[in-house]
């Protein structure tokens, strides 16, 4: 499994530490559960990246679904939260359609300027939760 940035390991870790659910269905979660099993709390404190805006795993999973569908990724192909869509073969039209798919799925509206900053599953999930929060407020 490719190594991933400290951000992703942290953002999942904060949620995963208490509930190590091993899900075989979605490769996103597969990655997450492996992290939590290996790391300890001390790595959280020494981390350089803050955890405050990170999304729940359910959100990440739903984003993965949309991305997989759009890019027609084979089920065995792992989808890491920080992989750039472009690395998965997405062109700019795919990315726009991914954002559209997310708008439909989560019933939100993504402003153009924000959409431009969505290049990974993680970024999408974080933004979605921010928008849902704003909507509820």
């Amino acid at each position, binding site marked *: 499994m490719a190594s991933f940035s400290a951000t992703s390991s942290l953002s999942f870790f904060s949620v995963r530490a208490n509930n190590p659910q091993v899900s075989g269905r979605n490769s996103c979660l597969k990655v997450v559960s492996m992290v939590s099993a290996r790391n300890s709390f001390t790595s959280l404190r020494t981390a350089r990246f803050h955890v405050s805006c990170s999304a729940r795993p359910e959100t990440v999973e739903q984003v993965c679904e949309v991305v997989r569908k759009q890019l027609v990724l084979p089920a065995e192909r792992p989808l890491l939260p920080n992989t750039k869509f472009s690395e998965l073969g997405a062109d*700019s*039209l795919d*990315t*726009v359609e991914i*954002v*559209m798919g997310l708008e439909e799925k989560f019933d939100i509206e*993504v402003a*153009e300027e924000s*959409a431009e900053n969505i*290049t990974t599953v993680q970024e999408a999930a974080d933004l979605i939760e921010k928008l849902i929060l704003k909507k509820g407020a």
Partner: protein
Amino acid sequence: MALKLNPMTFQSRKYPSFSLPSMASLRSPKFVAASVLSSGPKEVENVKKPFSPPREVHVQVTHSMPPQKIELFKNLEDWAEQNILVHLKPVEKCWQPQDFLPDPASEGFHDQVKELRERAKELPDDYLVVLVGDMITEEALPTYQTMLNTLDGVRDETGASLTSWAVWTRAWTAEENRHGDLLNKYLYLCGRVDMKQIEKTIQYLIGSGMDPRTENSPYLGFIYTSFQERATFISHGNTARHAKEHGDIKLAQICGTIASDEKRHETAYTKIVEKLFEIDPDGTVLELADMMKKKISMPAHLMYDGRDDNLFEHFSAVAQRLGVYTAKDYADILEFLVGRWKVEELTGLSGEGRKAQDYVCGLPPRIRRLEERSQSRVKQSRAMPFSWIFDREVKL
């Protein structure tokens, strides 16, 4: 094709707008080199160079067509003479700009000008902006003749080459030249627009050029021109219709006549690509998919008037709003060409060819869907001044 670099440009949500299919334009570098005029030390601050027109941001790729395919075009010269040159009109039978303008040699000249100006008074500012943008596009003709002469296998090697391809290119250029001339004179006489600003814009635009990413390949080149001719046909057809609605019948005739030229040119270029599909279906469908992935950039996307850094974006927003040329037109043109070239019925394609075929055939509905979504969103309406009309504001 494996040699090509295809940088992944991240598109903004405005993708469906036909303007943004062009690559984002890039401002000049942040560092200012010592200007030729100044004798002071080199400035290395983050200063934007004043009056810097946009530049192409993509990597410019050249000669992506394998050289052995050049033979193909040499072998097509006779075919081109019999099938393509026939779409040119003999000069003696051609209209000239003077046919549509006040006659300076006649006694009634001043009255004719007066009438022209009376009719033009009724034209709304947003329509004028679009007409001006179209005129500027036509006036950048040197760029388009240049572009045709970048294509391997069909370029005019001497400027007076007698190959059918070269004959076509020069005659096409000559026909197109009348379009800019006619619109220029009309706009000059109408008195509604700031000619100096327009002329400046033209000078900047010809200086900027354009790279439609045809990579010296006549496959890509003629696919591009097929698309463009149809686009200009639609666009001028719409400005003709609008002119009629605003009561300027003469202007409607002008735009309509230009549109009919474009239709004839579209017929010629699509015929060339049809022939390529016949001779080399796999190669051609791959190039069509490549061109569509890179998106058909509009010829004047680097336009600049010395004031507005996003001039093309603003101009095309108005063209979109008025329905003169829209993202839906973009999708319609692609769908038309897919039908015209019978892309869906191609057989005997390689694996990559079939992927390209699927991509191209599936693209129009995707673009339409995007455009519908974009339209359904609440838009903040914004007005923008245009230097072409003395900084009068127009809604985008």
